[in-house]
């Protein structure tokens, strides 16, 4: 039964300066199936999808849709071929409304004038059909991440996409939102849509996929199905070696409290209370995990500790230093390292080169100086060491950071922060968007720091990560810490319940 695939990509090759991003890749998708692309950071998944969507041109290879050769040279022609894409980084205009975002680029029934009423009506139809609740008249910046995701899917459905690409759609979603998304995607495949799914979370891949294709260094290394494989096998196919999915944690004596939060209250961006009377100690040699659905005050709390946001009440101390409403420089001077949630906005400067970003927090360090000038030889050696150690995939040390793949930017920030010999680490979503191999490494580094007596506060929405690493777990809901549990007595169910405010 050789059905013509909905999509077939043949022998696609794409190079960027210094990088072979896709190496003779062939890949196909049938109507009604979910075909997952799996691969490490920088393996070339997004590149392949951007070629399919007309954002990049391949150096060689061809694309066929429904058996016919398709010359896709722009997003417009991809859309005409009924290909839709939900990008790894949202492609929404925050100041425009949902309806305007959906209508962008489409002809209006009223010619020169927009026809947003009709667009809104159709959006409501689609959202009823698939249970994608969203208000067409609201501006994007007012929406939660999960809602924005829905808008992205509606954008594709509105254009009658028969083939939908979802590039890491779940990276920023809560477990509940992921479940909801999967229901919608299943409904779409039942209606005949073909879906390409990308995710680093193996349990999701096993749950949703019909077929799985693995990329490594730009080339296809194998194909499988969920029935024929398990997490461990998938991880090894991706990385090419054995992978430890849960880190070994040696027993470490809990030392004195190093980070002390007392009755901290913080206002959010819209002036409402975001963090409400939070008290928490993090001791030397322990990892405290903050679990919770994002948007419950974790980001504001993290920013307050890091000196990026002022507290309205309470105090923050590291060891014996009072750092309440101190500047980021003062907080760092006290031995604090910070891996922010928004890596591109708060963690790295996109236009800067890789080595510059690696130097961002210690460019004043005398060891990198020659008199008043930088000692570039030393800086290069230092950067090269970090890049090697954290296996940051970059063509050169002078590559602009914004061209690295998402996961590699995360590794770069991790490398810089962990290398600063901190006494307290705050890591927010440390492995979001990071591949299995790199996540393993980041986890082992955090465990290593813990053994060295560092106090680690880790914010994560990923319960596996929390349960795998934390010694104590604090659950945040509605700005409050609703419970603090020792790891031994924590269960997935109890945490889930507390995260939902129960």
């Amino acid at each position, binding site marked *: 039964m050789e059905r013509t695939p909905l999509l077939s990509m043949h022998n696609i090759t794409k190079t960027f300066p210094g990088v072979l991003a896709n190496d003779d890749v062939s890949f196909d998708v049938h109507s009604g199936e979910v075909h997952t692309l799996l691969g490490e950071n920088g393996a070339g998944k997004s590149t392949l999808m951007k070629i399919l969507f007309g954002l990049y041109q391949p150096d060689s290879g061809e694309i066929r849709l429904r058996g016919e050769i398709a010359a896709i040279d722009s997003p417009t022609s991809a859309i005409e071929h009924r290909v839709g894409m939900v990008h790894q980084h949202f492609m929404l205009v925050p100041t*425009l409304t949902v309806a305007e975002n959906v209508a*962008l680029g489409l*002809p209006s029934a009223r010619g020169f004038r927009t026809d947003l009423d009709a667009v809104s009506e159709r959006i409501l139809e689609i959202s009823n059909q698939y249970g994608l609740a969203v208000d067409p008249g609201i501006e994007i910046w007012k929406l939660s991440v999960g809602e924005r995701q829905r808008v992205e899917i509606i954008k594709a459905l509105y254009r009658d996409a028969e083939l939908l690409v979802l590039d890491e759609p779940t990276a920023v979603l809560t477990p509940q939102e992921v479940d909801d998304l999967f229901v919608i995607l299943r409904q779409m495949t039942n209606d005949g849509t073909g879906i390409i799914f990308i995710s680093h979370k193996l349990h999701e891949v096993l749950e949703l996929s019909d077929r799985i294709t693995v990329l490594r260094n730009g080339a296809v290394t194998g194909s499988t199905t969920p029935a024929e494989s398990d997490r461990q096998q998938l991880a090894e196919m991706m990385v090419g070696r054995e992978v430890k999915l849960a880190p070994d944690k040696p027993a470490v004596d809990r030392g004195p409290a190093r980070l002390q939060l007392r009755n901290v209250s913080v206002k959010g961006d819209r002036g409402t209370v975001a963090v409400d009377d939070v008290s928490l100690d993090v001791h030397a040699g322990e990892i405290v995990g903050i679990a919770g659905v994002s948007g419950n005050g974790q980001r504001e709390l993290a920013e307050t500790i890091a000196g990026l946001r002022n507290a309205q009440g309470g105090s923050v101390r590291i060891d014996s230093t009072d750092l309440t409403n101190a500047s980021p420089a003062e907080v760092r001077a006290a031995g604090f390292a910070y891996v922010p949630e928004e890596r591109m906005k708060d963690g790295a400067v996109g236009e800067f080169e890789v080595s510059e970003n690696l130097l961002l927090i210690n460019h004043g360090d005398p060891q990198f100086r020659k008199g008043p000038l930088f000692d570039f030889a030393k800086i290069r050696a230092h950067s090269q060491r970090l890049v090697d150690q954290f296996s940051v995939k970059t063509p050169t040390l002078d590559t602009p950071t914004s061209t690295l793949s998402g996961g590699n930017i995360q590794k770069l920030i991790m490398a810089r922060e962990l290398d600063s010999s901190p006494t307290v680490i705050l890591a927010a979503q440390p492995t979001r968007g990071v591949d299995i191999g790199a996540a393993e490494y980041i986890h082992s580094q955090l465990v290593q720091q813990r053994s060295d007596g560092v106090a680690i506060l880790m914010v994560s929405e990923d319960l596996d990560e929390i349960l795998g690493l934390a010694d104590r777990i604090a659950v945040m809901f509605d700005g409050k810490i609703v419970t603090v549990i020792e790891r031994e007595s924590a269960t997935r169910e109890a945490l889930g319940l507390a995260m939902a405010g129960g």
Partner: protein
Amino acid sequence: MSEFFTVSVIFATLSTSIRFAVPYLFAALGETVGQRSGVLNLGVDGIMLLGGFGAYYAVLETDSHILGVIAGLAVGLLMGLVYGVVTVFLHAKQGISGIGIFLFGLGFSDLLFQELVGTPLPIRPLPRLDQLPAVGGIFEPLVELPVVGPLIFDHDLLTFLAFLLVPAVTWLLRKTTFGMNVRAVGENPQAADSLGVSVARTRFISILIGSTLAGLAGATLSMQLAIFQQNLTNGIGFIAVALVYFGAWQPRWVMAGALLYGIVTATRIRWQSLDIIPQGASDVAAMAPAVITILALVLLASRVRGPAALTRPFSRH
């Protein structure tokens, strides 16, 4: 002092203010469209100077204000083509390209003036409504009305056009597909591009609209003053750019800023002529607009966020 506060003097000053506001308004409205699409044009003042000279020369030669307006628009369009090609298609830096346009306009308008005219000859001033050839009679009684006469009717047609452009530009930005594209490419060009909106074309057209209006602003200025001289604008184009920030990229607030400038300028001139400001201090008084601009930018502009992609060139790779 009391002379200034007689009702008729106040209304006459306000009437002049409205007229003075017009070049600011044309230029700033055009710059608003450009900036909403993500393009800053610092060359506005230079385009105004060239448009101003074009209009002045056309009227000098033909005595036709219509040809003057057309000359201003055409010069603006031409300069927009240059600026658009350089910044959108050749990805040049907007800041320095705009300065280049300004310097070219400043120098070239003066060169043309010296070569083609030499000594400043006045031209026929822009007629007010009641001085228009065919329909003037209709407006004569209206201009005589108290209050509304000087405020609303004692103006030239371009003044009306400028203020009508305020709702028109608002409508363009809010209610048309083009305006939606403009806002999208000024905020997140990648997103617009991913939906098949041509970032280059949208920005190019926005630049053309902006610079054409800058040309018209210059034409209005030289025809209202009925004269041309070196650096006639004296920085009006730069203030118009500042007014876009001042007005938070909203046409109605941009208009408020333009009116404020009109009032400041008219009041200063009136006070000088009434000797309220001593002659020695007139240079200081002439700085008032600059001081207001700086204060306004410090106090207001830091609070509102402009188009996120402003001044950022776009390319896919």
